[in-house]
């Protein structure tokens, strides 16, 4: 399943997509959990009882602001979450 967390507002589209099929057999040791400096990810049991990564509820409406420190202006050339997730489950829309 592709789970899209985020929103669209007047300034743009801010979504983090997680391909949860890759989380079920995570080959990165749940690296997303430790990689994000804001601790934005958590492992949940989804509606089909699979253990998958999700963006925590409290960050879902403020991604543009919360991820700002990792985006190019913040000095990172690649995003910590995307780099840590070697299966390639995480994508950002902006």
């Amino acid at each position, binding site marked *: *399943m*592709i*789970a*899209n967390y985020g*929103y*669209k*507002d*007047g300034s743009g*589209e801010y*979504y983090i997509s997680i391909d949860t099929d890759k989380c079920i057999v995570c080959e990165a040791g749940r690296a997303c959990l430790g990689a994000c400096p804001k601790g934005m990810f958590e492992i949940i049991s989804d*509606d*089909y009882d699979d253990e998958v990564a999700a963006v925590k509820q409290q960050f879902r*409406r403020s991604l543009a602001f919360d991820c700002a420190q990792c985006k190019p202006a913040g000095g990172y050339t690649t995003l910590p979450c995307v780099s840590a997730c070697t299966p390639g489950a995480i994508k950002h*829309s902006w």
Partner: protein
Amino acid sequence: MAETAGEKKEYWRWQENCWIDESKNWRDAKIITAGIDVGSVSSQAVIVCDGGLYGFNSMRTGNNSPDSAKNAINGVLEKSGMKLEDIHYVVGTGYGRVNVPFAHKAITEIACHARGANYMGGSQIRTILDMGGQDCKAIHCDEKGKVTNFLMNDKCAAGTGRGMEVIADLMQIPIAELGPRSFDVDEEPPAVSSTCVVFAKSEALALLKAGYSKNKVIAAYCQAMAERVVSLLERIGVEKEFFITGGIAKNPGVVKRIERLLGLQAVQTKYDSQIAGALGAALFGYTLVQKQGVPNKAAA
């Protein structure tokens, strides 16, 4: 009925609905399950007998989730002569899903809407747009109604039932009339420019002052809602067949404009579009009982 002095007419008030299938006798059913969808604006209870829809109650959400859940189920229990103890499994869904006191399990509305749409629209449904009271969801599912992709906008009320209620009150036109009246215009106006309900309200007032008829303002607002939800849908793509759930599915002014923008017709259903979430929850309950058996004691 004439409005008396001091009495405020509630233009936003939509039709509550309680129904049971008189052709069925629930006492014949081997497995009875219920789904309770406690949303921010409306609450539904659906009863499923042996995997088929038996009855439902759809009403406005009250002051708190537990009472809303009880009121919703009580309506359909009273109408059918059933007792809560006769129900083998209850699944809660919606934003108040963890506060349904008699539920055995909570499942998100995303999974439940997909499952409900699969029942209501058929196994060919692949894209679901749920326009709820205060959020909007775009969902892809497979032939079994299992979610494969989803997106949810709950950041603002634009494109939602609450937004439409605000416009009904502002225009002083009953909410059920908004859709038909939006087509009663000389020419289709451009959408109101703001997607925010608060600004759309002031923009609507400005348009009225500028000489727009009420119908034209409603048309501009329906178009804005349609454009907003279509942009949400486009993010995940629209695969055939396409189905709309939630209260706004009953508003042809928005539905027809969505269809026009997508170049695609939504699948019609004989069921009430507002019960999709609760129906999906009850169907999840049915599958769980089939797999795991009846739990020892009702959660109530």
